[in-house]
């Protein structure tokens, strides 16, 4: 039916257009052969209305399919296909990336410290702050400006400092668990008093969310690098299933140093006041993975794909918690199997749909034949 190969993408795109086309043909045929019980003009008008609607639908469908076909090829994006939506999607994601890696000084120039501003910025910044923390030797004095804020003397903003403390606290997590004790120990190594843990109102939740944001940022970097290499032709593009498998594995491997205490971290993430944040991190993670896998869908598939990958990721994470095989081989096998399941399900869904279409066509044909036989289609 479609010329392109199926293993490129296992999204659940329906061939509803073919069905619509067949239905249109049938209706047209029916209206042609219908008899003159009702006035002919009315019948014609009704038929025309139906046809107009169907043609509109067909045209829209064709446009969509053109889009879908064009974006299905991740390596060679077709610039011609009406790529408004695709461009917007990519731009939106790029904005998201930028906002994540935005240098904190510019975003937190208004330091006047109200609680909500802090809570909000402290969540946005950690993704970008680890890069700041990494480049500490060449710390930019970009916040050393005489702004309306109070931080003329500080070389970094409060958010940067908080991010630095949290990053340092990760070292103490194996010893103290995900708690403020780890943060206090880290603050002391940085030369701050342990009372500075009072800055973190969410306590251990701040630490865990910071870690999750940091890991997600790392993964996005890795995926972007890979993508660039593929663009430059230095590497072979992977199949979607393999790509996703590698992405999930890379991301889950970041948990390995903390795997002993990871159940505690997961339980912290599930606390009601942390759920919005953790869901946000999870959804951006899955979205990034699909984006770099080449998904540019703009219909229901967007949701189904992300839902599927979220399910795979969460279950694999849980399996990893109780995995005791060397280098977590069981986990990666589990991951493989789940991805294969989804691929097979996609193929099966397509087959079922094709079968369904054929059956419908057969039934329609049978109905028309019956009508012909019984003489209902004749116009006398």
């Amino acid at each position, binding site marked *: 039916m479609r010329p392109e190969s199926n293993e490129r993408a296992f999204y659940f795109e329906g061939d509803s257009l073919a069905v619509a086309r067949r239905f249109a043909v049938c209706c047209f045929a029916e209206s042609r052969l219908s008899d003159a019980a009702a006035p002919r003009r009315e019948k014609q008008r009704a038929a025309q209305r139906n046809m107009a609607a169907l043609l509109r639908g067909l045209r829209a469908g064709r446009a969509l399919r053109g889009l879908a076909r064009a974006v299905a090829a991740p390596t060679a994006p077709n610039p011609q296909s009406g790529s408004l939506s695709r461009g917007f999607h990519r731009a939106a994601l790029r904005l998201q990336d930028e906002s994540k890696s935005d240098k904190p000084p510019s975003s937190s120039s208004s330091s006047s410290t109200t609680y909500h501003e802090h809570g909000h910025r402290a969540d946005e910044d950690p993704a970008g702050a680890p890069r700041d923390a990494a480049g500490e030797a060449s710390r930019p004095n970009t916040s050393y400006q005489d702004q309306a804020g109070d931080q003329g003397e500080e070389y970094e903003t*409060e958010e940067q400092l908080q991010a630095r403390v949290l990053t340092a606290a990760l070292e103490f997590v194996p010893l103290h668990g995900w708690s403020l004790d780890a943060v206090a120990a880290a603050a002391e190594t940085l030369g701050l008093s342990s009372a500075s843990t009072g800055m973190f109102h969410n306590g251990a939740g701040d630490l865990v969310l910071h870690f999750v944001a940091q890991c997600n940022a790392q993964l996005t970097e890795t995926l972007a690098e890979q993508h660039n290499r593929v663009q430059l032709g230095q590497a072979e593009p992977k199949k979607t299933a393999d790509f996703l498998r590698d992405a999930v594995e890379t991301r889950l491997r970041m948990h390995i140093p903390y795997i002993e205490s990871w159940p505690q971290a997961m339980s912290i993430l599930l606390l009601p006041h942390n759920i919005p944040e953790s869901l946000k991190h999870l959804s951006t993670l899955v979205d990034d993975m699909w984006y770099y896998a080449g998904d540019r869908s703009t219909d229901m598939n967007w949701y189904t794909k992300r839902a599927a990958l979220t399910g795979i990721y969460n279950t694999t994470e849980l399996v990893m918690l109780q995995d005791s095989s060397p280098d977590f081989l069981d986990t990666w096998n589990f991951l493989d199997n789940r991805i294969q399941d989804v691929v097979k399900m996609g193929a099966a869904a397509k087959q079922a749909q094709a079968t369904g279409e054929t059956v419908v066509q057969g039934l329609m044909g049978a109905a028309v034949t019956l009508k012909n036989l019984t003489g209902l289609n004749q116009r006398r």
Partner: protein
Amino acid sequence: MAASVRLLLRRAIRLSHGNTNVTAAETAGRSGRRLAPSTCRCFGDAAGDRSTHFGFETVPEAEKAKKVYKVFENVAHHYDTMNDAMSLGIHRLWKDALLHAMHPQPGAQLLDVAGGTGDIAFRFLEYVRSQRERQRRRAARTVQTPSWRDISSSYSSSEEDGEEAGPRESGAVVCDINKEMLKVGKRRADSAGVTAGLSWVAGDAEKLPFDDDQFDIYTVAFGIRNVTHIDQALKEALRVLKPGGRFMCLEFSKVTNPVLARLYDAYSFNVIPALGEVIAADWKSYQYLVESIRKFPDQEEFKIMIEDAGFFCVKYYNLTGGVVALHSGFKL
């Protein structure tokens, strides 16, 4: 409008940091009737002839400290009883809330200024002790089957227990300008049997007798409104705190709810001095107390003052609908 004018003035003053600007601001402030009288008086006159508020009276600055000293000398012996009577025991909840927000880590050093009878210090020591207990219990639980190495190390550590119980021992220092209040506090400590880690120092909040970078936590509970120069006290707090240290202030503040405000005013001006007369035979001191509460800047203004002194991450929590506000800032 008044608020923004005030803010602008503050910014101007902070940026220049000079005395000359203070006078300019002050004259500008005096001319602008919209400014609250307390801000005018905070910056004071150019020379000598400064005056400030003592309750609803106006007194020369030099005298205020003496008068406050007298007040607390008189009330010292009935201080705790009066606290319970006036606040119907709620002051305990406020102080507990302060400790809860503080969440001191083991090994923290506390400075309780205007701590007087030592309420905060006692609670702090209690909190740290129970925390230590919990830590020890948790450690014991995780090491149910200790290895020979653990057992031998626990033998050696039990010998040095007197010197070093754990990584660091917490301590609290109670500092008050009024020796009577300190005496009452010491008596309470002795009767409660609390001696370890507690010291009593007489000192002025505007000029603390401590070195720089000494303490992890600085608290002042219901004391800072009695200080003549609040900004000076805040600067001293910044000085004695370690980097990363926390400043916490519990103080009466503006009630947000207007209905509650009416009731609170009626209660304050009618019931409290009467209670003072009955229990402590001192109407005037409690009149001063209630008036000084009204003279103290409100939550936002005090927050700005704390920020101006150099603290970061300043925020406040209203307790009991704004009757009491808990301000917290960090020295970063």
